[in-house]
């Protein structure tokens, strides 16, 4: 044995003294990477070449349209305000970003009066700061920020956006654009998560009434398309209210979206709950923890972590579904952009408008997706494969 190894050029070692050797060249470096990832078999080599061809074929025209042939700056007369821009100022074979520039205010704020647009800006900044504060690892005083965010901020935001108490009242009919999309998306997500968790716990409850109510609600809502829920919220909700009570249409839509989303969140969370081993419940109970302590401290943190991918999937879906509110007459971001290119000056700018919408929605959803992946890594403990 030792003889043949020596003949292969390998030094014979005493048992237990064999050192770690570096892997062979074919496993290392750029060659190894290429071989493993791109050319590991004939089929994969062909697919790699086809892929390269596809990129060469598609990417240049797309970049040309989006960037190089696109019109970025308005002509001189528009810049010195002697007239407003229109589609004729744009090159025909590229994107017309002038359209986005000219309509940007409406895309973001809808018909919110220009003089008051600082109010949604303030709300947006506080929203982003609070969310960052709550989610980042290093920030102190999370409890106080959470109390502010969940108990005070909603009222503050409502006051700033709607007005009253010294501010001009701006009715929700004037709200719109990306602001509307964010309001529906953020409120929908933040309110439907705890509601969905409660529904999931209700569905797993041993109390028959609670169980049946939860199942009934979840199955009813999941069996109906969102657009139906929105129409119902719009048309039917007033029927259940005493006459004379007016419910704002945005509020009606929000309630519809929240209830709809909560049903899906409930099922996602239920899946997470089912993945928690019985031993975790028993371990918690055996130490004398009550039901809510057990759920809050032991079960839900684990169940929600497991559910993150599916939850984010639901939330991305919800964010996209906010476009459906245009069906009940609200001007969300997409609807606002569509209104933009119905303007006589901009007829024909629809391609640019839709692409712009797609980019904005994509950035938002990709952001959520990346954040969820980051969160999964951060919450990961133990030895499982990532």
């Amino acid at each position, binding site marked *: 044995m030792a003889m043949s190894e020596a003949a292969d050029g390998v030094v014979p070692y005493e048992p237990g003294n064999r050192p770690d050797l570096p892997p062979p060249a074919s496993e290392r470096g750029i060659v190894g990477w290429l071989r493993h990832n791109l050319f590991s078999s004939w089929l994969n080599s062909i697919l790699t070449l086809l892929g390269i061809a596809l990129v060469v074929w598609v990417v240049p025209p797309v970049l040309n349209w989006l960037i190089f042939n696109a019109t970025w700056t308005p002509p001189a007369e528009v810049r010195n305000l002697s007239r407003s821009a229109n589609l004729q100022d744009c090159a025909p074979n590229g994107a017309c970003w002038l359209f986005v520039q000219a309509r940007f205010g409406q895309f973001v704020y809808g018909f919110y009066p220009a003089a008051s647009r600082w109010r949604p800006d303030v709300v947006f900044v506080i929203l982003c700061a609070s969310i960052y504060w709550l989610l980042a690892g290093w920030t102190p005083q999370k409890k106080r920020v959470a109390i502010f965010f969940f108990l005070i901020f909603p009222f503050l935001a409502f006051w700033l956006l709607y007005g009253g108490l010294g501010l001009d009242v701006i009715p929700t009919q004037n709200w719109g654009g990306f602001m509307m999309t964010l309001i529906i998306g953020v409120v929908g997500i933040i309110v439907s998560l705890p509601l969905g968790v409660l529904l999931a716990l209700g569905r797993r409850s041993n109390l028959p009434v609670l169980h049946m109510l939860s199942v009934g609600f979840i199955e009813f809502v999941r069996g109906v398309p969102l657009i139906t829920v929105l129409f119902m919220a719009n048309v039917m909700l007033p029927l259940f209210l005493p006459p004379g009570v007016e419910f704002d249409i945005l509020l009606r839509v929000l309630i519809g979206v929240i209830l709809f989303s909560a049903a899906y969140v409930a099922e996602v969370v239920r899946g997470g709950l089912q993945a928690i*081993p019985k*031993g975790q419940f*028993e*371990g918690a*109970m055996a*130490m*004398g*923890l009550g039901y809510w*302590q057990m759920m809050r401290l032991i079960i839900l943190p684990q169940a929600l972590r497991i559910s993150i991918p599916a939850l984010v999937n639901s939330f991305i879906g919800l964010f996209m579904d906010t476009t459906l509110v245009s069906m009940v007459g609200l001007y969300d971001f997409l609807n606002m952009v569509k209104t933009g290119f119905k303007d006589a000056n901009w007829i024909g700018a629809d391609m640019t408008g839709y692409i712009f919408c797609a980019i904005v929605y994509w950035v938002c959803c990709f952001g959520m997706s990346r954040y969820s992946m980051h969160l999964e890594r951060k919450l990961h*403990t133990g030895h499982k494969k990532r």
Partner: protein
Amino acid sequence: MAQPATQAQAATDTPMIELSGVNKWYGQFHVLKDINLTVYPGERIVVCGPSGSGKSTMIRCVNRLEEHQKGRIIVDGVELNNDLKKIEQIRREVGMVFQHFNLFPHLTVLENLTLAPIWVRKMPKREAEEVAMTYLKRVKIPDQAQKYPGQLSGGQQQRVAIARSLCMNPKVMLFDEPTSALDPEMIKEVLDVMIELARSGMTMICVTHEMGFARTVANRVIFMDRGEIIEQNEPEEFFLHPKSDRTKLFLSQILHH
């Protein structure tokens, strides 16, 4: 069956645990048949028997992880019934160690130990951490306090689980096959901790097949089969002169392999 005289520090003491006429069914299946068992403070009881004999079910009834349908279970003077407050009160005083550890994987070892003292006993965090570190030293892994359970070996995890129960300062400890899920080389470190605990005077009920452990620390060994307590005796008598045929068969199967 007459209860053998234990080293009976305390035949006059009130019992710590008293099961009288306990019966339990899973559907049609009669798992526990008329169980009578009295455990005095400071006693160490080892429960053995073939798989499916109801050993685990019996000790899980003591802290109400399983519900019994007939008979009475009194723990530390409190009778177990459907009253949640009483159940939680008893669970605070009864520690339990499981076959699969049941540590909380999303919390560090230290957080696992301090969770119940903080939330159930309302102990200040700092004090809970001090108590936790004392017990981690006692089970000989204070250096693992900041790790997650998933980063520890099975033996270490089980020692953490024992320390976690001890942090609640329980009056009784229940062990449900604490070494059955461990690799052979880790069984000893866990048994050493349990022996040390037994010597400190803790009242213990252990479901285990570690007969060496039973010989070393038990006051009484209980043999269960098909939901009944077949035989109970001091370990010496139990192993040398088992009375019933089923006990003899069981012992021959686990001791001669």
